């Protein structure tokens, strides 16, 4: 273990930052190849959709317009150069700028992700702490069963059941059309609270398990025993000493799940008829919309990589025991 102050930390952060670049580059290369291996071609799909069998000359022309006639490495270089300047071009399917396509859906996906996080954290921290304090009691077993069930229940099915319950008991269906929060907050929440709950349950299960095991670990530490020995009030021991230290791993799980929620709600969005990033991804793949697929994957994977980086440096900063290698 080397020194804990000054240079090593800065060096670690810089190294960790630089490591993100090859990963992002690799993600870009991987999705670039993957989406082109999918049988079918965006131009052919689009043209044949419009007028049955289409003119091969027109197709070649259209392919040239997108630069699809150039060698792969050339296409990749052009795209990467654009991506580095955050210019992802236009959608090959709709022709609209990528940013435009994504911006429309991003607000919705972000809001669902934030609401699901609130649901998850509000459930996870009290339940996890309770289970850890009463380890191996019936409370602990109940919390564990509740959280294992959360991991086992498909969010999309929970969504169907939620809709069903609302329909049968209240004769009411959540609004099916998206209203931005600033236009009509009630309308907006009435629609988005259900997917947030459906996803939040699974999410809370992950976080509850992490809170429980982190608390169990921390409660066995010497400094907790010391705090108890010097007669500190149990409430203070829990809030100041234990919970604060147990929060680090929980924060990591919550952060990473959040990054995944942004683009990973592919199925739940389908159930609730939400026009979010997940649905956009499914459509982009179905249309072989190369530019849109690439941009979406870069967004989702990029969010994950950045959150991961932030978590690592937060750890390094908060916990001097972490070794900087």
């Amino acid at each position, binding site marked *: 273990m080397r020194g804990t102050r000054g240079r090593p930390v800065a060096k670690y952060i810089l190294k960790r930052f630089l490591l993100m670049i*090859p*990963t992002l580059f*690799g*993600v870009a290369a*991987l*999705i670039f190849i*993957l*989406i082109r*291996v*999918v*049988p079918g071609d965006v131009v052919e799909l689009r043209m044949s959709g419009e007028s049955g069998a289409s003119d091969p000359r027109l197709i070649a022309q259209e392919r040239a317009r997108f630069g699809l006639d150039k060698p792969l490495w050339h296409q990749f270089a052009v795209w990467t150069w654009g991506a580095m300047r955050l210019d992802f071009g236009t959608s090959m399917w709709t022709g609209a700028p990528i940013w435009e396509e994504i911006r429309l859906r991003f607000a919705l996906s972000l809001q669902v992700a934030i609401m699901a996080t609130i649901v998850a954290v509000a459930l996870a921290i009290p339940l996890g702490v309770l289970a850890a304090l009463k380890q191996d009691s019936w409370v602990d*077993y109940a919390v*564990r*069963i509740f959280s*294992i*069930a959360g*991991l*086992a*229940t*498909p969010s*999309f*099915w*929970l969504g*169907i*059941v939620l*809709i*069903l319950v609302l*329909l*049968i008991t209240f004769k009411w269906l959540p609004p099916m059309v998206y209203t931005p929060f600033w236009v009509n907050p009630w309308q907006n929440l009435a629609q988005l609270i259900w997917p947030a709950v459906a996803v939040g349950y699974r999410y809370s299960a992950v976080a509850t398990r*992490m809170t429980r*095991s*982190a608390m*169990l670990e921390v409660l066995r530490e010497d400094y907790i025993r010391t705090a108890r020995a010097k007669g500190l009030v149990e409430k203070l021991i829990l809030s100041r000493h234990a919970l604060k230290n147990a929060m680090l*791993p929980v924060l990591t799980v919550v952060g990473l799940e959040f990054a*995944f929620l942004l*683009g*990973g709600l*592919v*199925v739940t969005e*389908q*159930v609730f008829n939400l026009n979010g990033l997940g649905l956009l*991804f*499914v459509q982009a*793949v*179905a249309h072989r919309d190369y530019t849109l697929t690439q941009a979406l*994957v870069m967004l*989702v*994977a990029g969010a*994950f*990589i950045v959150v991961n980086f932030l978590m690592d440096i937060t750890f390094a900063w908060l916990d001097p025991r972490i070794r900087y290698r």
Partner: protein
Amino acid sequence: MAITSPIDQAAAAEVERTPRARWWAAAQSFGRRRPLGAIGAIVIIIMLVVAAAAPLIAPYDPVVVDFGAMLAAPNAAHWLGTDAFGRDVLSRLIYGSRTALIVGFGSAFIGATLGAILGVGSAYFGGRIDLYLQRVMDIFISFPLIILALAMVAILGNNIPNLITAITIPMIPRCALVIRSSALAIRELPYVDAARAAGFRHRRIILRHMLPNVMAPYLIMLTAFLGQAILLEASLSFLGLGVQEPTAAWGLMLRGAAVEFAEAAPWMAIFPGLAISLAVFAFNLFGDSLRDALDPKLRTL
């Protein structure tokens, strides 16, 4: 015995009888110590039996359409009702367990095994190879599970072997990372040095000396993947990108008509979801207890 903790091992060692008696004793002590895990194991065994004996148990043929009995509510003839094509929901659930278990076991086994080999190899060779493999793993892990699986299905097409491949790919790096960290500690142990000094080939050291010693994290990852693979298959089938009609699969049963007729025929939407949840729940219960028994330090997984 690879599947028991030191405590359970001691309990098993007391019974010095036939191997079968030892296994039975180990199973009993597992049941006593970890009741939740035992419940999971029992449900898994029942599921395996049901899947194997599907033609004997199922009251109807799962793919035969009966327009005389469309959307029938649960009754004496159809215990769990029928779907929009008059197919018996119970029979489709029973046959659906085959799909879930084949895809679940197939992808979890292949994913965990390839992951373990990569993880151990990466740790064993170290240096450049380790560094490059780690970077490649980082790239794959940055994709959400479902997104990578979706892309793979789009490339491969959707029959069951392709579905297994698509679900396996995102699992390999996740397993490799965990196994690698266990293998790093093993690499430093004297018996690996001894094996190297004895002039054994790399392949032999990896397969015979290191791989058996990462059995605990391997089995833990395997059981964790089982539940995830079943969920992923259900999600893909629900999107219409997994198993295709008329094959019976739980995720597929929730697709289309189940949502459309949810109010008129809620049994179509409720029972397949319960089946998925129960199966994954059982695998998770068992996996959790197995993890606690084998390696309490991996609790955070």
